[in-house]
């Protein structure tokens, strides 16, 4: 009896060692996350495996397009300076790659909200012939044949075996851990910093004219809205309607978070705006009228040149340098080398 108890205790200790929980800290002022962690608890081993997969070209058909090729840490995991991202065989992606952070608070993903659970999101770029262009079966067999992965999956999930669920859950353990909540704005909220004389009026204008949709603290209300962007004649992208099939959803796209917005240019679902000034000009005088246009934008958003200046100053306080420089989120193959 006693011997068995001791063995059981030792065994559970071993399980605990490989299953060290990875701390997920809810930033002060943030709502509770919506990702169901209980089904896929984040562990250090699972996170590390997910990080390795995220940076590994094996998930793409020719080895050249890891997740990180379109989601670059220095761009807050968006694609830096690209309207559309580049995929397999000299192809463009359909939409501007969204930044990846604070995903634990999102129920739906993509510009049109077509993805209903963070775990299944990687299937979209992996299997899209314009992006990573792979097949799920082929990815599994490549990982099974790899020298390192079988042991890493064993460590992360407590038993041998590589399947689609484990690949997707490991990737999720990495992406759900990408939390950005340490910008100057956050420090001001915590009383650790103060806005400059330019940022402060910018914040006031923001609260008055932008915060209804770009709601604090996530800087998005996660809704879908038509912001008066006429559909591009080649992309023919009608946004949310593609998912719901409802005319009412024509030209509606997810309100993006403005956190790290200095790093995530160009802007808009098709990356049509090169700069923040372009975006603000659109809202003040470029809104295209249509049946589904957001009611708050019927007359555009009146913004003076001064308002725009101050707003842009404020938006700069949303850059989280500790997030984009966090060594935990770097390519594990490069983590110890200087950039």
């Amino acid at each position, binding site marked *: 009896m006693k011997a068995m108890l001791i063995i059981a205790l030792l065994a559970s200790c071993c399980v605990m060692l490989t299953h060290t929980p990875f701390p997920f800290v809810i930033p002060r002022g943030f709502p509770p996350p919506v990702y169901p962690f209980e089904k896929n608890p984040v562990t250090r081993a699972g996170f590390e495996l997910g990080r390795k997969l995220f940076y590994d070209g094996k998930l793409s058909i020719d080895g050249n397009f890891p997740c990180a090729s379109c989601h670059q840490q220095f761009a807050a995991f968006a694609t830096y300076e690209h309207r559309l991202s580049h995929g397999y065989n000299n192809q463009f992606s359909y939409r501007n790659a969204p930044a990846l952070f604070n995903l634990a608070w999102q129920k739906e993903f993509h510009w049109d909200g077509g993805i209903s659970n*963070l*775990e299944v999101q990687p299937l979209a770029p992996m299997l899209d012939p314009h992006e990573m262009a792979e097949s*799920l079966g082929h990815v599994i067999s490549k990982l099974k044949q790899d020298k390192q992965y079988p042991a890493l999956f064993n460590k992360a999930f407590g038993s041998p075996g590589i399947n689609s669920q484990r690949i997707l859950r490991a990737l999720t353990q990495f992406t759900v851990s990408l939390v950005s909540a340490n910008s100057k704005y956050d420090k001001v909220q915590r009383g650790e910093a103060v806005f400059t004389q330019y940022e402060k009026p910018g914040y006031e204008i923001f609260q008055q004219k932008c915060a209804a949709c770009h709601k604090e603290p996530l800087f998005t209300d996660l809704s879908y809205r038509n912001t008066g962007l006429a559909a591009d004649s080649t992309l023919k992208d009608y946004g949310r309607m593609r998912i719901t099939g409802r005319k009412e959803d024509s030209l509606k796209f997810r309100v993006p978070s403005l956190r790290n917005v200095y790093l995530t240019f160009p802007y808009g679902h098709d990356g049509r705006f090169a700069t923040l000034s372009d975006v603000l000009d659109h809202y003040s005088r470029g809104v295209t009228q249509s049946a589904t246009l957001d009611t708050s934008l019927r007359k555009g958003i009146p913004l003076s040149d001064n308002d725009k200046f101050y707003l842009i100053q404020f938006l700069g306080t949303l850059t989280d340098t500790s997030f984009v420089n966090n060594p935990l989120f770097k390519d594990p193959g490069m983590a110890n080398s200087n950039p």
Partner: protein
Amino acid sequence: MRRLFFISAARDIYPAVSKPDALSKTLRLACGMILMIIATSFRTTIPPAPNLILRFKITLHGQPLELHKDYPDPFGESFKLDIFRFYTGKISAGLNGAPAEKGISASAYQLIDFADSNSTSVALHIKNGDYNEIHLRLGIDSADQTSGAQTGLLDPLKGMFWTWNSGYICFKIEGVSPESNEPAHGFAYHIGGYRSPYQTIRTIKLATPPGRTFHVNKAETTILVIPIDLDRFFQGITPIHIRNTPACTTPGELAHKLFENFAGSFTGIEIPDKR
């Protein structure tokens, strides 16, 4: 652990027993208890042996249809099928509309794939009795549509998951027809969707021929045939001409119409003659 506890408990109940025959009685009692515990622990993990098998078959013009062979559809359009797959589950048996007896099977869903003859039969355990109805559900629960990465028959590896609009294809037909103007004359119906109002989930009730019942008992396995009549699929509530509708690969209104036709192509239960 539980078993060990019970052994020691048995000892404590009879601490003073010393006669050899009484001791063997105690031992027998303890052994019996262990066996009982083992039996109960197994009962929860292993489903009862199947006593009912449903065999699905595709028919056209009253004859069984085979994949990869040319046929004329009811409108005279030539076609051949290469893929025919669908999800079903929650199968039960009923008698004259009385509350149905739930069938117990190895998994919550079955993926019937006519390219894999092992998958076109479903084995169930049903309470002994006489029945004249089979209830089965087509499609996938909305809860399972959004619950993330799954394994088994719901593994996205099965090719029944939409990657850009999360959700399962509940019914998939692919084939070739000279009538189709799509690339390589292909036609494809990937039918699914769980968002209102175009949900593709339904429980259908199938009946035996009038006056007939089927009997389920422990001693032998009852086999039933469930035909899927493609004439009814093409000539359903919304007639489907391959020339006009060679593709439906997104959830929505058209998918919902095709789903109605699919659900309507289950005509009833055939009871094969016993040899």
